[in-house]
């Protein structure tokens, strides 16, 4: 099944190498394209057991990637049926942005951050120009190629937003990257949801940890409001009409500077515009790319000069995005950051008291980076999470509960016969 016969050629063209991992809908393996000599990653989409033919998610990805050809979007090189399964051939990518952010041996200069963000937005602008929403922007879906080029990948959730009245599911994006309008259950949304997620990625590049780590949808909103203040009616008039709108206790916005002490003024200005509450007023990707942040010094690092994780002995491809390294996401608990304890509050979050939000807020304001030494920390850095019998939340993906929910939603009706 998983290709023990390494020398075998697939479809007379691809020389099969090691298995890279298990993707959402099948095995991913490395291969050599004998026609071009290029290293590729092949996704094998299992069809055999499916009673509904070609996997719906895979089909979406094929459909959209055939339309989106750009240096900052993963290239679908080829597709072919083989032994009853559909195979998708992608360019081989060395690593992903999550691995870069997580790697403590890597120092990211302001110019490096600018470069990674610029490539992210360049890929995204191509999607939006073609009326495609990505809907699953997160560092681990931003793959990095051998020359440092960052490319958007995993379009399994993406869709065309052409028809203005079509209602979509709001259960998209991993929670930490979900825009407030989605968390409030909107069914009609646009490219602004990708901008919010890109802002979260920008913040993550600056902080070197996920910025808004909510443990539930309610808590996610709490985290957002703690960071930017509870939105007022004048800031976001349509908010109260959203399907899942609930009132949150008012908290004022701490100065953005206090959350990102190391960021430049231009960076903060762009970040604030990308984190605008009202999706109608949120900056577009095109406008973001034209922001002075990208033209002011330091200029973005050229891609092949960007720092990347040291190559591993046995190459684990980034394409294996669903697969968690055994040592766990170190970014969640860097020892030098007391803010790590904040997810702990999630233990009490079940009750979802508005007061908790306020508490969170008070502690969130504390600058997380840079001046930890100068601050008198309230919590010892060596605090053991096990005291609370809980662990910091794992980096959420679209989980199985969401998936089930997704399937039930109007635009993903996909029942299996039997």
């Amino acid at each position: 099944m998983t290709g023990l016969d390494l020398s075998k050629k697939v479809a007379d063209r691809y020389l099969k190498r090691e298995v890279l991992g298990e993707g959402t809908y099948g095995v991913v393996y490395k291969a050599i394209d004998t026609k071009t000599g290029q290293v590729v990653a092949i996704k094998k989409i299992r069809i055999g057991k499916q009673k509904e033919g070609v996997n719906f998610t895979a089909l979406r990805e094929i459909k959209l990637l055939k339309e989106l050809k750009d240096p900052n979007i993963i290239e679908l090189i080829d597709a072919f049926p083989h032994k009853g399964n559909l195979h998708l051939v992608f360019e081989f990518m060395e690593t992903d942005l999550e691995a870069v952010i997580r790697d403590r041996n890597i120092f990211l200069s302001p110019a490096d951050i600018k470069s990674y963000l610029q490539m992210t937005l360049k890929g995204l602008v191509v999607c939006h120009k073609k009326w495609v929403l990505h809907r699953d922007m997160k560092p681990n879906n931003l793959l990095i190629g051998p020359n440092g080029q960052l490319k958007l990948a995993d379009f399994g959730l993406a869709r065309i937003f052409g028809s203005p009245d079509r209602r979509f599911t709001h259960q998209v994006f991993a929670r930490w990257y979900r825009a407030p309008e989605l968390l409030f259950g909107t069914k009609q949304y646009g490219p602004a949801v990708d901008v919010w997620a890109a802002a979260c990625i920008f913040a993550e590049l600056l902080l070197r940890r996920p910025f808004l780590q909510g443990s539930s949808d309610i808590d996610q909103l709490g985290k957002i409001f703690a960071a930017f203040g509870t939105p007022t009616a004048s800031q976001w008039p349509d908010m109260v009409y959203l399907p899942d709108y609930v009132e949150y206790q008012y908290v004022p916005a701490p100065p953005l500077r206090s959350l990102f002490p190391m960021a430049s003024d231009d960076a903060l200005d762009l970040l604030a515009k990308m984190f605008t509450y009202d999706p109608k007023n949120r900056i577009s990707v095109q406008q973001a790319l034209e922001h002075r942040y990208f033209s002011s010094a330091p200029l973005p690092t050229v891609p092949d000069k960007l720092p990347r994780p040291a190559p591993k002995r046995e190459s684990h491809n980034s394409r294996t995005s669903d697969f968690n390294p055994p040592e766990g996401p170190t970014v969640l608990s860097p020892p030098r950051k007391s803010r790590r304890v904040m997810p702990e509050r999630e233990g009490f979050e079940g009750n979802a008291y508005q007061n908790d939000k306020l508490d969170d807020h008070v502690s969130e304001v504390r600058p997380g980076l840079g001046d930890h030494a100068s601050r008198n920390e309230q919590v010892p850095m060596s605090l053991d999470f096990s005291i609370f019998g809980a662990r910091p939340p794992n980096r959420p993906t679209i989980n199985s509960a969401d998936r089930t929910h997704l399937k039930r939603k109007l635009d993903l009706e996909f029942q299996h016969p039997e």
Partner: protein
Amino acid sequence: MAANFWTSTHYKQLLDPEEVDVVHPLDRERGVTVEDFKLVKMHMAQYILRLAQHVKVRQRVIATAVTYMRRVYTRKSMSEYDPRLVAPACLYLAAKAEESTVQAKALAFFIRKLYAEEKPRYERYEIKDILEMEMKILEALNYYLVVFHPYRSLTHLLQDAGMDDMTQFTWGLVNDTYKMDLILVHPPHLIALACIYIASVYKDRDTTSWFEELRVDMNVVKNIAVEILDFYENHKLIAEDRVNAVFNKLALKP
């Protein structure tokens, strides 16, 4: 219309009219003529429509399915790709691609139903066959699945021309263009304009100045309109016995 059409694979794949109605050599050996070929495609567009009405999908899905079917036959023969299987499989694939999935089981059920009603013109195919053909169609389409249609431009254009009352009439005309290969040859907004042009002539509306303000080649629009009118002239009905005769030809060994 939509700025993205011009960068789409649909635009890049538009064909010259001469490239569309070419009978595949394998079919020609069996005596299939260009007229036969057109007739079968028209008949299969009708079959897709009938199945679609049973499984209840949007007009857009039907239009995409017919486009897939027509694209397949610019590359593949009818003797190897039985239209009576390609048609439902295209509907099945189009439903997925347009995000309103139809169950293979439901489709197979209605295939059987139509087959029982009108035996020779439809063939009995099972889920397994549909799924196998889905994969072959994907390959024949070279995995290009995004298709643009005249409907959205039509709505915008009618509004702009102040002809909202013509929506139903023109919409029907657009539906009928899928009985031809126009969608493989012309940009969708020009097909929409041709339908508006026919409607304004037919209903005696003066749209000359409105058309003049549009920056489009009126010759192309008029040519499309003439093609549509010719079609109405020549193909009022799908002659069933003629369709059956073509299927008999296809079944023969050359």
